[in-house]
C-alpha cells in the first residue's frame, strides 16, 4: 500500500451519516443564500415554485432547478453572482459556448475552500509536505495554474510556478530544481516525457514521483505511457471553473481507481442526460454538481455534460467520500483542445460574422507528437470575389485571427469549395476527432 497523507482526516474520513447531515445543512444554507443574494436564482427558484424553507433533506435536491452553461453566458459577466463585487477577490474566465466567455467570481471563502480541496487532493494522490511541485498548467484566467498553486502552498509543498509551455525551460527546471511532483495536462505530460526521451534523459536522472493531471480527458493507455516515460504515478484530478476549478475530485494513490468527490463541498448526481432522472448506482450518466460551500457564485445542479458513473464500493484508502469513474465522454459537443474547452458553436459564431464564406464547416482535431491540432475547413461562398489571391488569403487569415481571439487557440483554416463538406440530414457533419481521449 502506497503511503499517503490525509490532509483533513476529520472530513475525509467522516462517517457517511455525518457527511450527509453536513451536506444537508450546507445545501439548505446555500439555497437560502442564493434566494437572498442572487436575483438570478431567486427568479429560478420562484419559477420552480420552490421556497428555501422547503429544502429540508438531501432528497429535496431534486426539486431544485438546473443550471446550464448558457445561464452563465446569458447573465454575462456577473449576473449569476451572489456576492457584491467588494467581496469578490478573484475572477476566473473560461470559454463560453459562443462569443462571450464564462466568468466565475470567487470570494475569499471560495478560494480557501477550493485550496483545501486541492490540498486534500494532493494528499490523496500521494504527495507529502516534502514534495516539490512543478506547476505546468497555464497561470491566468484558466483555473489550472492558480488553483494548483494555492493548493500546493496550503498543503505545504514547495512550488515551482513554471506555467505552461516553453518545454526546454520545463526540462531545465526538472533537472535543476528536482521537482518530485508534476502538475499539468496529461497530454503535456506525455509531450514532456517524449521530449526527455529525445534528449536522452532517463527518468532515473530526475526526482519526479507523482503527476497530478487534469483539465482534459485521458485514457488508461495514456496513463501507462506517461508513467513509463516519467517514472511516476500518474494521478487523475477533476474539476471545472463553474464549481471552483481542479480539485473537485481526485484519485487516491491506494486504489488508483475512481476519483473521490469532496462531498462536503459538492453534491454530485449522475443523471440520464435525456430524461434528467437519476441513474442507478454504477451506471453511466451525466455528472451534475451542486456547490454547497461557496458564497460568490454557488451553482445549483450544474450540468457538467461529463459522462461518468458512481463507483459505489467503499474505497480501500478509508476515505468515505464516494468516487466517480474516469470520464467516459460528453453529453454535448464540447471538445477539449490543449486543455481549452471548445464548443463548435464558438467557431460558428466567428464564421457567421464574415463575408465570402458559407456557414458550413468541419472541425478536425488530431494529436500530433502529443500536441492537439485544430484544423477547420470552411466552404467559400460560390460567388466570393476571389480573383485576387490576397483577397482569399486575407479571408483565411481573418478567420484564423477571429478563432484565435475567441478560443485563445491557434487553428489552421482551410478554405474549401462550396457544398463539398459532407452533410447529414442537411446539416454539416461538424466535428471529426481523430484523438483517442476516452477509454
Amino acid at each position: 500500500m502506497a503511503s499517503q497523507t490525509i490532509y483533513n482526516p476529520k472530513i475525509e474520513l467522516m462517517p457517511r451519516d455525518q457527511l450527509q447531515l453536513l451536506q444537508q445543512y450546507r445545501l439548505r444554507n446555500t439555497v437560502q443564500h442564493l434566494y437572498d443574494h442572487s436575483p438570478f436564482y431567486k427568479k429560478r427558484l420562484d419559477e420552480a415554485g420552490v421556497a428555501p424553507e422547503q429544502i429540508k433533506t438531501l432528497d429535496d435536491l431534486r426539486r431544485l432547478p438546473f443550471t446550464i452553461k448558457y445561464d452563465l453566458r446569458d447573465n454575462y459577466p456577473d449576473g449569476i453572482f451572489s456576492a457584491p463585487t467588494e467581496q469578490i477577490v478573484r475572477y476566473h474566465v473560461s470559454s463560453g459556448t459562443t462569443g462571450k466567455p464564462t466568468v466565475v467570481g470567487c470570494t475569499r471563502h471560495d478560494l480557501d475552500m477550493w485550496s483545501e480541496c486541492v490540498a486534500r487532493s494532493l494528499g490523496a494522490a500521494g504527495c507529502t509536505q516534502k514534495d516539490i511541485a512543478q506547476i505546468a498548467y497555464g497561470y491566468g484566467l484558466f483555473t489550472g495554474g492558480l488553483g494548483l498553486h494555492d493548493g500546493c502552498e496550503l498543503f505545504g509543498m514547495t512550488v515551482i510556478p513554471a506555467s505552461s509551455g516553453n518545454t526546454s525551460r520545463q526540462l531545465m527546471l526538472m533537472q535543476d530544481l528536482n521537482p518530485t511532483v508534476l502538475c499539468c495536462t496529461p497530454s503535456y505530460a506525455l509531450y514532456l516525457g517524449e521530449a526527455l526521451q529525445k534528449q536522452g534523459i532517463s527518468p532515473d536522472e530526475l526526482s519526479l514521483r507523482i503527476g497530478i493531471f487534469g483539465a482534459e480527458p485521458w485514457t488508461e493507455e495514456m496513463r501507462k505511457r506517461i508513467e513509463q516515460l516519467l517514472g511516476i504515478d500518474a494521478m487523475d484530478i477533476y474539476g471545472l471553473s463553474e464549481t471552483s476549478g481542479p480539485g473537485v475530485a481526485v484519485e487516491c494513490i491506494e486504489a488508483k481507481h475512481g476519483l473521490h468527490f469532496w462531498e462536503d463541498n459538492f453534491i454530485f448526481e449522475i443523471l440520464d442526460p435525456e430524461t434528467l432522472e437519476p441513474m442507478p448506482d454504477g451506471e453511466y450518466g451525466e455528472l451534475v454538481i451542486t456547490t454547497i460551500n461557496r458564497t460568490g457564485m454557488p451553482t445549483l445542479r450544474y450540468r457538467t455534460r461529463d459522462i461518468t458513473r458512481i463507483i459505489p464500493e467503499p474505497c480501500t484508502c478509508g476515505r468515505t467520500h464516494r468516487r466517480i469513474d474516469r470520464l467516459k465522454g460528453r453529453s454535448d459537443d464540447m471538445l477539449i483542445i490543449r486543455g481549452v474547452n471548445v464548443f463548435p458553436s464558438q467557431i460558428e459564431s466567428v464564421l457567421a460574422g464574415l463575408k465570402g464564406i458559407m456557414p458550413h464547416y468541419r472541425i478536425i482535431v488530431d494529436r500530433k507528437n502529443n500536441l492537439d491540432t485544430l484544423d477547420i475547413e470552411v466552404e467559400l461562398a460560390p460567388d466570393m470575389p476571389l480573383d485576387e489571391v490576397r483577397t482569399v488569403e486575407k479571408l483565411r487569415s481573418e478567420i484564423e485571427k477571429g478563432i484565435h481571439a475567441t478560443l485563445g487557440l491557434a487553428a489552421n483554416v482551410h478554405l474549401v469549395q462550396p457544398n463539398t463538406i459532407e452533410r447529414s440530414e442537411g446539416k454539416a457533419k461538424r466535428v471529426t476527432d481523430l484523438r483517442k481521449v476516452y477509454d
Partner: protein
Amino acid sequence: MFIRQISVFIENRKGRLAEFCRLLGENGIDMVAVTIADTTSFGILRAIVDDTDKAVKVLREANYAVTVTEVLAVAIDDEPGGLAVALEKLRDAGISVEYLYSFVRHVGDQCVILFRVDDPTHAIKVFNEGGVRLLSFDEVISYR
C-alpha cells in the same frame, strides 16, 4: 474593350485540376487562355473561355466558387522588349498591374497578353493613345 475572365478557387489537392478541365470539356467549353496563381493550400485559376456565362453556370452547379473579372487583352510585338513598351506606358500613367499572363497564340508577328490593372478605363486610354493594340473578346476567341 473588356475581356471577361473567370477566376475559380481550386483546392490544392491531387486531381482537382484535372476534374475542373474535364468538367469544362464535357460541357463543350473551350479554354482560350489559362493561368494559375497558387499558394500552399489553394490556387486561383484564371481563364478566358469561349462561353463565359455557360462556364459560370456549369462550374457553380458543380460546387466551384467562381467569379467573373474584367481584364484587358492587348497585342504586343513578339520581340525582345515588346512587353516592356506596354508596361512602361502603364507605369508612366501611374497604373499598377495586378497580374498578367501571356497568350501563346500569335497574331501575325504579335502575341497576346492579358492584363489586370487597378484602373482599367485609364489603361484603355493609355494603350489607345500609345499605339498598343487592344483586342476585343471576339478577337481573342477567334485566335483558337
